[in-house]
């Protein structure tokens, strides 16, 4: 098993775990946890290909990961702000209870 294959397997497993969290959790915040895991799996792929892949790609992988990290931070901040606002209205973060359009 080459390092590249190892890292790709790791990222595939991390992605699946994140997907599992998104599918099984009911708390909105814990769904965000799953999304962070999935984003990190994608980042891991970029870094793995930059390090062990064909050398022509240059700095594209790390640069992309930098942008991805920035956007993940923005996504977490905006998401949690929305969750807090929803919580203020409904006193719950359980997705199954957030089924009403009426604020």
């Amino acid at each position, binding site marked *: 098993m*080459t*390092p*590249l*294959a*190892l*890292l790709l397997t*790791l990222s*595939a*497993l*991390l*992605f*699946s*775990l*994140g*997907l*599992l*969290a998104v*599918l*099984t959790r009911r*708390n909105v*915040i*814990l769904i*965000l*946890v*799953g999304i*962070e*895991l999935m984003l*990190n799996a994608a*980042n*891991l792929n970029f*870094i*793995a290909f*930059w*390090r*062990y*892949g*064909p*050398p022509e790609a240059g*700095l594209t992988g*790390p*640069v992309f*990961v*930098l*942008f991805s*990290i*920035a*956007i*993940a*931070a*923005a996504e*977490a*901040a*905006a998401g*949690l*702000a929305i969750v*807090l*606002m929803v919580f203020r209205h409904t006193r*719950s*973060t*359980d997705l199954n209870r957030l089924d009403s359009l009426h604020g």
Partner: protein
Amino acid sequence: MIPLLLITPLILLAALGAVWKARPVHAALLLALSLSLIGGLYLMIGAEFIGLVQFMVYVGGVAILIVFSLLITRPGDEAEEVARRPRSVATGIACVVPVLGMLLYAFSKGLPEQGSEGAAPSLPIKDLGDRLFTYDLPAVLAVAVLLTAVLIGAALFARNFDKNPEPPADS
């Protein structure tokens, strides 16, 4: 290779804990552990700057935000979560396994014949900066606008909309 083999199961275990733990704060802390281990992995394979940024943003920012909002929202009881677990997990796994299989199949098919396993490609911080502020400048500006918008938006969202937030000056 050996350090990689050592840290990979640790990352997976921490991520599994983050997905499996019924107590939300434990899950968030394990997520922080898993993300910081990924940062350590980046440090190991020569992407120092990315690893440190990962530490700074995910451990210092995202994980803290998550535990903080967990504390504010006081999530419901864990017993209910555990009780309904078998069914939801079965459904989840039924959905996830095909995805995992497809990913692994694609990776096994698409791998280059031989990767460059020798010397790590260097990641000089100056080159990264040059590249970011010449070739990728539009993207940097877009991200800057996005982050500013999120900062203001989050502050507005999270503001207290009470009519009379301040206690009366003298009473």
